[in-house]
């Protein structure tokens, strides 16, 4: 294990390795700062760039974007009261008052930078500690368990990410169906290829990913921000580094929130937005001065920021040890790793431990660079959000086109990307959510392969999924996660009717 660790250090600690992380972090912060550009969008646009780099460097760059984007969102939350990403919505509550009512924007930003870095580093330590344990437990998994686990991952995301669970399930099914296109690996049968060469290799993930996450979001931005201009930031910062007194005050909050963030991140279907709200509420509950929350309390900035950055390590725990992504960002991460020939899962830890440690070490450095960039460049980042939409939007669109083309060098991919983007625009408008579709597409192959392998192993016996305890438990949780919202709605209705009658 120690050998693998030093090996991974050698992989990361090269000039190009560090440069990739730095580039990723800068790009992530940019995406995070701009309202309307989400971390998912940034990761999908940059995925082709990452893939064009030499294998390991691409992974490091994606980690940088992942961390940087979560942090970047807090800058706009504090400066203009508009969270750059949904993760930082809770930061507005205290960050904006501190910056404007109390005229301490520098203090607010220094606290958020410190908290973000602490949360990220804390979760990286947790990842380093827990993923080997989980992996060794998961090594006993057979095809049945892998199937149940993937099913669990998809159904939880489908259930949580949509307002309407039915639409979440439908999205996941569409994604799974898209994954069946191409040559069937087990029997060699051609499925849904319509005798075209283009579809024989299956639907490639990248055009769908970019179309659904980046392109459609760009279209939505065009529609919603049409004819509006963004607020300009002209505030002078009085300080960049946090004061000792602030550090002492927020320290307990940092620990608590980072732990909350890591735990929530490790649960599939959740994300930074949930973590930051839970972190904020807990900080308020534990505080000696809960009345100060909402009026620029330092803890009110530290809590959501450390919680949402702790997501990064937490979300990688199930991804690296079990091979299931818990949200859209980790789904893209999984896609990136698989395209680079690294298959996350229990076997990765035993077969390629250096890769696992490389990701963990990369996460450490991504957070360290985030702090460096944050403290050194915060004055520039606050200005970035003034870049007008009118320039940004065409740039994003061109990025989508070039990135899509860069992977397979076919124009067919570009048409597929446009098609997905237009469909995505209408689907988002119809209150569908995109993550289940992507998760279905990326996990579809794994799910079907393990399903059929279990059937072969059991000689075609259906009950095999339920007679094995672990797989049975996961299938039951998967089922409950889908049924629970319906039951909850029903109970609420009954209560309301009773209340009305009484």
């Amino acid at each position: 294990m120690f050998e693998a660790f030093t090996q991974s250090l050698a992989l990361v600690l090269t000039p190009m390795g560090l440069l990739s992380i730095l580039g990723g972090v800068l790009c992530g912060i940019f995406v995070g700062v701009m309202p309307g550009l989400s971390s998912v969008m940034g990761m999908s646009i940059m995925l082709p760039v990452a893939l064009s780099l030499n294998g390991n460097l691409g992974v490091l760059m994606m980690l940088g974007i992942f961390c940087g984007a979560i942090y970047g969102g807090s800058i706009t939350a504090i400066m203009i009261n508009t969270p750059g990403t949904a993760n930082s919505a809770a930061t507005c509550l205290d960050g904006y008052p501190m910056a404007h009512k109390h005229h301490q924007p520098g203090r607010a930003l220094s606290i958020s930078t410190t908290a973000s870095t602490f949360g990220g580093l804390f979760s990286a330590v947790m990842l380093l500690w827990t993923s080997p344990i989980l992996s060794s437990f998961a090594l006993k998994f057979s095809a049945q368990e892998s199937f149940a686990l993937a099913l669990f991952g998809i159904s939880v995301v489908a259930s949580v990410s949509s307002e309407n669970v039915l639409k979440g399930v439908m999205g996941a099914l569409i994604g799974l169906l898209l994954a069946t296109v191409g040559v069937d690996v087990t029997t060699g049968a051609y499925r849904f290829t319509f005798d075209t060469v283009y579809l024989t290799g299956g639907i490639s993930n990248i055009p769908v990913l970019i179309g659904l996450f980046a392109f459609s979001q760009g279209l939505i931005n065009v529609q919603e921000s049409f004819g509006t201009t963004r607020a300009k930031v002209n505030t002078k910062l009085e300080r960049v580094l946090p004061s000792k007194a602030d550090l002492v005050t927020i320290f307990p909050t940092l620990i608590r929130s980072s732990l909350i963030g890591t735990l929530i991140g490790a649960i599939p279907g959740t994300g930074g937005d949930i973590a930051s709200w839970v972190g904020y509420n807990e900080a308020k509950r534990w505080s000696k001065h809960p009345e100060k929350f909402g009026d620029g309390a330092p803890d009110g900035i530290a809590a959501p920021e450390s919680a949402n950055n702790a997501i990064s390590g937490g979300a990688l725990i199930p991804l690296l040890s079990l091979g299931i992504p818990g949200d859209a960002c980790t789904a893209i991460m999984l896609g990136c790793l698989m395209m680079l020939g690294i298959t996350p899962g229990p076997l990765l830890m035993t077969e390629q431990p250096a890769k696992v440690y490389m990701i963990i070490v990369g996460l450490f450095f991504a957070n360290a660079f985030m702090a460096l960039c944050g403290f050194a460049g915060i004055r520039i980042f606050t200005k970035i959000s003034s870049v007008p939409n009118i320039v940004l939007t065409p740039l994003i669109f061109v990025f989508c086109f070039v990135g899509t083309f860069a992977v397979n060098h076919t124009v067919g991919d570009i048409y597929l990307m446009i098609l997905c983007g237009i469909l995505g625009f209408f689907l988002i408008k119809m209150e569908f959510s995109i993550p289940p579709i992507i998760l279905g597409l990326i996990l579809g192959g794994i799910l079907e392969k393990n399903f059929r392998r279990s059937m072969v192993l059991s000689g075609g016996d259906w009950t095999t999924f339920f007679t094995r305890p672990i797989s049975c438990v996961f299938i039951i949780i998967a089922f409950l996660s889908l049924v629970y919202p319906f039951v909850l709605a029903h109970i609420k209705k009954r209560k309301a009717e009773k209340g009305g009658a009484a």
Partner: protein
Amino acid sequence: MPDPFPVLCPAGRDAAGTRTFRKGAIPVRKYNTILSIVLIALSTAGIYLSLNFDVRGGNAGDPGAAFWPILLCSALIVCSVILLVQTAVQAKKAAEPEAPLIDFASAGVRCVLIIFVIMISYAVLLHFFGFIPATLVFVVATMLAMGERRPVWIALSTVGITGFIYVLFALVMNVVLPQGVLL
């Protein structure tokens, strides 16, 4: 201030003055119904296609190449039917017509529809003329569609974006850009 979108987006009319996209807004329930029906049709077609898959002997116990797609299509049909029923029940309950989901008459949506067309043209241009000429045209068209009218801004952004992407992808990252079959 004069009308900011005098050329491309006057209300409901395109540059030639003919009426565009003013079909009126469609409520979300109607969209749900349409989508359910489309998905049911597609899934049925999917099942039909699956039945004709090349069935070659897999291992004993393997349900075969067609089983999984048929399972998914059937599940999708079930979900679509539930959505259809759910939507119908909601429609019965709701007394007043709901707010339109996508207001095709609004300037933003019209701009998006124009951008759809620009996108497809861009893909075609990329295919035939390659990255630089196509992108120059594309950025100008998109900025015009979004209501930008200042020539200096348009010129600078166009050159800037094209140059930035070209330098980043082609020179720094060594990524292949579309070459254009005609050039």
